[in-house]
């Protein structure tokens, strides 16, 4: 409209004019000026009231009446405690779930890491045929440090387990070997003392260590005098130079940082060799701090340029084709991001269903409140005013739900932490901070508007004549309300269907995974890990002797059937691959994939129940000086010798001391899921432990009894050989299997729980709408029965109505699922997104739910005395 809006002053002016005119007229009739004005004012009535009416129509005094609305809403809600409690709890669940998940998203995706200018901290990787995020080689790392000008600092670190000894008991702690500028990249100063600096950590000089706050508190009682003293790590005295603040947790879980001996961290297996010139060993992580003003894109472009140059210089040896540059935050959160977003989607659906349910109850009440509304309308309450009243009621309910929801989120935050790599956030995970609460408020208000507006429009939009007519007939009232409620129920069923299908797909994936052959027998096996101290066992022979001794002692423990050692337990992500040469084979362009490299003691296959398919297992005779032999898995046999007998073939598995030594294949074993149940088995080669005695070993002990019960005896067997040797991760193999599935299990459980909540809400919705419709049609049903309809007919009619709603909901839900489930693609295993069984199962479940929840009202209707229902009016 082009007409300019009138303002309040203009209106006040008009009223003044009115009074002046009236006074003038009265004066013309002979009154005195004062009397005339007074009379005019009196005739006008309450000037302020008129002005207020104007204001109200302009909604300028909107808030003024809000208080009255609120009081009225509270009164109404108090009068219906059951309804209020049910609606508030429903909303609390929906809002609480949303708040809890959002608080995780806030921690992981929105909040910057607690480091100065954390957005400038990057993780740098090589991007090559092997991986998008491959580790840099030492020489490449040093090239980068020299040539790349977009970084202020570039540091390398390697996570290492440290044996903290020389105290009352040995302890294995998570630590990192870092280049001294590691702390410059992170930008965090020490809480106490100093961090490592390039100047003070001259290669080969006295070695120092920085402690994490938690380690300092736990082992050293938070005593500041520890500074400058030496502690023994891996049998080597290191001087404590500083303690980090409590929030500093990088790499996650790390509690001590030790400077690298060379320009790059030591290679774990050959720490005594300076690997700085190596271009084919990739074993450490790289982080960098961008210069201020440099964007990630610019830095990536430069890194790519350098990568291209290195590739030209070093050709095939230079695995680095391009670079990958991620913010540290993205690097940390990695694959958790899609899972979190899917969960947020799931809880949003849940909240929608909760809203639909509350709207449904409000609609039912709205229908019974028509008389009240009609009266208020007749008394002059405008439509806007009535809508506002409904919205106030909705907001009041929403606020109750919101407050309860925060409580729900508060309770949920601890179990939900498991969704994130918690250690990186040091206690800030799932905090209900201002942003999270703002999100809660937003969710609350939008829900309230959603479920409040629906009944408001329906209740105030009724046709007065129709209401009067219906009142005369005494039945059939609220046809319109019934239609609205049916739409809501269909929507509820559809949304619940989406959640159930998502949960069903995850569940079916999970059961597929459980059915995957692990390649070993986890029952009755205890696993434990050891890191042999380099200081105490510096050479291969010493380590081999120690492991042999340990195995003998473990074997001697009563109840132990077999004990063995392996360099890496199954179902353990991470890789230790080796390049391979096969005698008589011409490698395809791009090379053969490097097989997993595993070092196993002779009894390994027997202890873990891995089937030897062909040839033989290792024996004690496969010692350091015996003829070199290897055992391969079936995946390897299939890849390299599809047409031949792998037994007797010759291979070299390089990069580990005896690089060009030809080893003969003496056995083929079953494929073991080395990297996780959902990872297809890769080629793997096993080497006898005596030939390559690793310092990091896992032990597997097959017991005749419950494996956990044998743990103390086995641990003391270790200490009886070396009381300075910490043992860690002592757990049954079945726990290892369970743990490898735990992220999936958690996601599936959560989405499953949300889906069943949704199903419950939908059931309540169907029950409500059916019960309501039965109550409305009592007369009609009575007449039908009086005319000879059987109870079965009534039952069928009522249940049939619910069924129609359910089927419509299922159809809509299936259509939505087809569009939405692609977000789950990355989380499925072994099934299609359009898995027919899941869709069919969910459809049946929903239809069955509809039947069950409509049975009670249907049964009640069928049992009603037809005469009684006819007599009602």
């Amino acid at each position, binding site marked *: 409209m082009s007409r300019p809006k009138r303002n309040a002053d203009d209106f006040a002016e008009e009223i003044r004019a*009115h009074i002046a*005119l009236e006074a003038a007229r009265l004066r013309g009739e002979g009154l005195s000026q004062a009397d005339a004005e007074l009379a005019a004012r009196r005739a006008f009535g309450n000037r302020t009231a*008129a002005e207020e009416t*104007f204001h109200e129509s302009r909604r300028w005094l909107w808030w003024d009446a809000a208080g009255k609305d609120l009081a009225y809403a509270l009164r109404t809600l108090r009068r219906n405690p059951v309804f209020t409690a049910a609606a508030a709890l429903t909303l609390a669940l929906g809002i609480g779930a949303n708040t809890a998940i959002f608080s995780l998203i806030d921690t992981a995706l929105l909040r910057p890491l607690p480091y100065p200018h954390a957005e400038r901290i990057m993780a740098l990787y090589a991007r090559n045929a092997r991986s998008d995020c491959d580790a840099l080689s030492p020489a490449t790392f040093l090239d980068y440090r020299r040539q790349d000008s977009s970084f202020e600092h570039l540091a390398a670190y390697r996570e290492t387990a440290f044996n903290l000894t020389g105290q009352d008991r040995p302890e294995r702690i998570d630590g990192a070997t870092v280049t001294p500028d590691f702390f410059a990249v992170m930008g965090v100063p020490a809480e106490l003392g100093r961090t490592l600096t390039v100047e003070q950590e001259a290669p080969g000089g006295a070695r120092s260590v920085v402690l994490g706050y938690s380690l300092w508190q736990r082992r050293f009682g938070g005593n500041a005098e520890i500074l400058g003293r030496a502690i023994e790590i891996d049998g080597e005295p290191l001087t404590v130079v500083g303690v980090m603040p409590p929030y500093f947790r990088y790499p996650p879980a790390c509690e001590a940082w030790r400077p690298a001996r060379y320009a790059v961290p030591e290679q774990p297996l050959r720490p005594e060799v300076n690997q700085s010139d190596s271009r084919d060993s990739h074993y450490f992580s790289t982080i960098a701090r961008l210069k201020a003003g440099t964007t990630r894109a610019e830095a990536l472009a430069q890194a790519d340029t350098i990568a291209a140059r290195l590739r030209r210089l070093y050709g095939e040896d230079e695995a680095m084709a391009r670079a990958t540059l991620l913010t540290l935050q993205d690097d940390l959160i990695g694959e958790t991001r899609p899972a979190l977003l899917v969960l947020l989607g799931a809880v949003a659906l849940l909240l929608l269903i909760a809203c639909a349910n509350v709207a449904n109850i409000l609609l039912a009440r709205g229908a019974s409140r028509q008389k009240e509304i009609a009266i208020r309308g007749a008394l002059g309450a405008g439509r806007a005013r009535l809508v506002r009243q409904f919205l106030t009621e909705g907001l009041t309910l929403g606020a109750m739900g919101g407050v309860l929801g925060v409580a729900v989120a508060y309770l949920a935050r601890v179990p939900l932490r498991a969704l994130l790599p918690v250690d990186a956030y040091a206690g800030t995970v799932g905090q209900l901070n201002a942003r999270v609460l703002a999100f809660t408020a937003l969710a609350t208000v939008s829900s309230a508007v959603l479920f409040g507006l629906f009944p408001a429009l329906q209740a105030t939009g009724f046709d*007065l004549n129709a209401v009067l007519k219906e009142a005369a007939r005494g039945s059939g009232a609220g046809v319109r309300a019934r239609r609205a409620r049916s739409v809501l129920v269909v929507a509820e069923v559809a949304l619940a269907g989406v959640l159930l299908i998502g949960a069903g797909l995850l569940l079916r994936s999970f059961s597929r995974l459980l059915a995957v052959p692990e390649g070993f027998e986890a029952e009755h096996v205890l696993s434990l890990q050891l890191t042999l101290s380099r200081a105490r066992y510096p050479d291969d022979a010493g380590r081999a002797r120690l492991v042999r001794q340990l195995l003998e002692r473990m074997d001697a423990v009563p109840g132990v059937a077999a004990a063995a050692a392996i360099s890496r337990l199954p179902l353990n992500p991470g890789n230790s691959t080796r390049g391979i040469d096969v005698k008589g084979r011409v490698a395809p362009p791009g090379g053969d994939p490097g097989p997993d490299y595993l070092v196993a003691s002779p009894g390994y296959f027997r202890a873990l129940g891995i089937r030897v398919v062909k040839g033989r297992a290792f024996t004690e005779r496969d010692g350091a000086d015996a003829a070199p032999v290897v055992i391969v898995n079936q995946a390897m046999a299939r890849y390299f010798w599809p047409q031949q007998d792998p037994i007797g073939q010759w291979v070299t598995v390089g990069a580990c001391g005896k690089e060009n030594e030809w080893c003969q294949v003496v056995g083929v074993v079953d494929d073991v899921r080395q990297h996780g149940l959902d990872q297809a088995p890769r080629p793997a080669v096993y080497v006898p432990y005596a030939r390559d005695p690793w310092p990091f070993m896992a032990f597997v002990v097959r017991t005749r009894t419950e494996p956990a019960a044998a743990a103390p005896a086995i641990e003391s067997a270790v200490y009886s050989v070396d009381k300075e040797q910490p043992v860690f991760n002592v757990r049954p193999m079945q726990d290892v299997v369970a743990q490898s599935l735990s992220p999936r299990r958690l996601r599936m459980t959560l989405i499953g729980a949300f889906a069943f909540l949704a199903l419950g809400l939908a059931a309540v919705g169907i029950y409500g709408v059916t019960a309501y419709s039965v109550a409305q049609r009592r007369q009609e049903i009575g007449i039908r029965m009086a005319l000879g309809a059987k109870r079965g007919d009534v039952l069928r009619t009522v249940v049939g109505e619910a069924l129609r709603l359910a089927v419509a909901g299922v159809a809509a839900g299936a259509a939505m699922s087809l569009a939405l489930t692609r977000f789950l693609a990355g989380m499925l295993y072994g099934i299609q997104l359009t898995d027919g069984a899941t869709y069919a199962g969910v459809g049946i479940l929903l239809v069955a739910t509809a039947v069950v929840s409509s049975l009670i009202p249907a049964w009640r209707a069928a049992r009603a005395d037809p005469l009684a229902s006819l007599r009602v009016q």
Partner: protein
Amino acid sequence: MPTQAEKERLSLLQGTLDVLILRTLLFGPQHGQGIARSIQETSQDELLVEHGALYPALQRLETKAWIAAEWGTSDNNRKARFYRLTKTGRRELIKETSRWRRLAAAIGHVLGTEEA
């Protein structure tokens, strides 16, 4: 967006005053006080226009563009806001008038037969 039902309800409650205002304006532009006075006089003081109802009604009619308003000067040289009938208003007045006549007649019939 008022629904059909609401329009009807509003008209039941407020239609009377609206049609009287329109009718008054048929004789030329008038300010609020003049309209009130005029209705009171032509109804021989039977109808007392509540001023608290008059201005909202004027406001409403103006919003519907049945009447238009502008500031002017009254006969006795005072500033006042004058309302005049628009084309739409004139058309609506005809419609409303006949509706009211019919309604009044119908009520008359009903009351008459009831008494009989």
